[in-house]
């Protein structure tokens, strides 16, 4: 047996292959295509304190090497999540990470307090980087602002009984500044990156492709940029990094680990290939075996310069 385990925020995950929030639901549907127990962790779709309807359609567009989305955090709210999703998560062997967003410090902390009581949740991912919703009174996204990032991470850290992973946006001048702010505010890990703000136009109708006009770009098109950002942040902070952005196959996953990721998340790839997560896991396992890697630390951040 190859040892694929990885440690993040004091938690030992069986392997570094996680799902990306919003791209896997909470696992029930894709559980019909793959064995969920094999995954390192399932990261659930972001939830908010109160239910949200999400944005008007169209919410999806195809683009070269990726896709645009403007879902807008449609979800049933924390209470509904605890009532309807947690019983399912309880039955799974895989660790569950729950993603939380809010419009204010209070919305974040109230949601976190409710989730504190749910034993089976391993960690919380704090989504301060969704490009498709309003971020309180901030012009732009919480994680585009060093102070707002610090304020929210500090506030959730104060009330949370669970490790905190900060999920940040690539739409900044210098992502290391935001990463440092997360670390200083007490984040246990950083998840990067969320989608890039983007748009598209139908030249026949001259209308935007998305109902919300702008949305987020994901998929293979963003991978090289995500990779570069992970490498930069790896060289700046001490807390572990969970790499996400355009990972389509196991080679991509290894690249992220070599650039410093302690784990990776698979997002858009699931839509194209519903068995992507386990396909990637198999490839990573084979790579570890063939290269006689005994521990992920032998690989993490070890690009040869």
């Amino acid at each position, binding site marked *: 047996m190859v040892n694929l385990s990885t440690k993040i925020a004091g938690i030992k995950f069986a392997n570094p292959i996680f799902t990306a929030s919003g791209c896997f639901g909470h696992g029930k549907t894709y559980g019909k295509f793959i064995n969920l127990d094999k995954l390192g962790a399932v990261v659930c779709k972001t939830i908010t304190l109160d239910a949200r309807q999400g944005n008007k359609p169209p919410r999806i567009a195809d683009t070269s090497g990726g896709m645009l989305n403007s879902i807008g955090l449609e979800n049933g709210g924390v209470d509904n999540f605890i009532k309807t999703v947690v019983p399912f998560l309880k039955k799974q062997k895989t660790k569950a990470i729950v993603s939380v967003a809010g419009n204010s410090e209070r919305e974040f902390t109230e949601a976190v307090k409710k989730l504190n009581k749910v034993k089976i949740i391993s960690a919380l991912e704090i989504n301060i980087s969704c490009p498709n919703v309003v971020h309180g009174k901030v012009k732009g996204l919480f994680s585009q602002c060093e102070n707002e990032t610090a304020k929210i991470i500090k506030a959730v850290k104060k009330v949370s009984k669970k490790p905190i992973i900060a999920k940040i946006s690539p739409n900044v001048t210098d992502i290391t500044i935001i990463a440092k702010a997360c670390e200083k505010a007490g984040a246990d890990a950083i998840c990067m990156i969320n989608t890039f703000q983007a748009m598209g136009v139908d030249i026949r109708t001259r209308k935007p492709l998305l109902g919300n006009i702008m949305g987020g770009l994901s998929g293979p098109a963003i991978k090289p940029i995500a990779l570069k950002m992970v490498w930069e942040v790896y060289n700046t902070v001490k807390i572990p990094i969970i790499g996400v952005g355009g990972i389509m196959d196991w080679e991509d996953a290894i690249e992220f680990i070599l650039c410093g990721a302690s784990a990776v998340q698979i997002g*858009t790839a699931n839509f194209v290939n519903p068995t992507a997560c386990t396909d990637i896991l198999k490839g990573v396992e084979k790579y570890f075996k063939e290269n006689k890697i005994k521990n992920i630390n032998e690989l993490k951040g070890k690009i040869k310069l």
Partner: protein
Amino acid sequence: MKKQICKIISNKKISKDIFLLELENKYLAEKSKAGQFVHVLVPAQNAEDKAPFLRRPFGVNLVDKKKNKISLLYKVIGSGTKLLSQTQKGDALDVMGPLGNGFEIKKAKEHIIISGGMGIAPLMQLVKEIKEKKAGKIHLYLGAKDKNEIVFVSYLKKLADEIVITTDDGSIGEKCLITMPAEKLLKQNLSAKIYACGPYPMLKCVAGLAKKYKIQAQLSLEEKMACGVGVCLGCPIKIKTKQGDIYKMVCKDGPVFNAEDIIW
């Protein structure tokens, strides 16, 4: 629902820009029913092709349980459908399906089936199932842009009790919208059920007629899709429910919805 690699038995042009693709697959033939769809990963043929990134949804056109095959009927409108039209007999195609809910067929005196353009694709299997179940008389109303889009008429004539055709340019049938002759039939106060698939304005009009004549209508809708299985929340349609108006997903909760529940 499964993801499988299926063999293409044939992929033939049957009219201008319209192709019929047959797939060999036991599981899909056994499980698929009228109104459900499959999600196809369209392969690039040449380096210069702009292959679509996401899968493309297509209605199940006809199911042949004996021969373990299903067919898709599609029109070339963009890069994905163009590349699909270039696939050939013997090629492998990555297909997820069957997906979605499909039509519910209940006994009724008259079944009024209204198609607009490529809406005929999933409705052919519906006609076949109603006929096989001997569920009632079939009135088939086919509307299209022009005569090129009116396909499989001789096949459908064998199954339907009545076929009415209209086109926008009058190249075949009356030159008007298909909802006009359909309303004439509905006026007769029938004990009937309506089924429709086609462009948004046509479906909206059918929903209006169904309400006016108090007849239950099932409409098959379209929305841009990514996952096709209800995960990404990318294909919403606003639906009236007891808890208020909420978004449901066309891929998972549909593509077939009751006309009276839809908020236009």
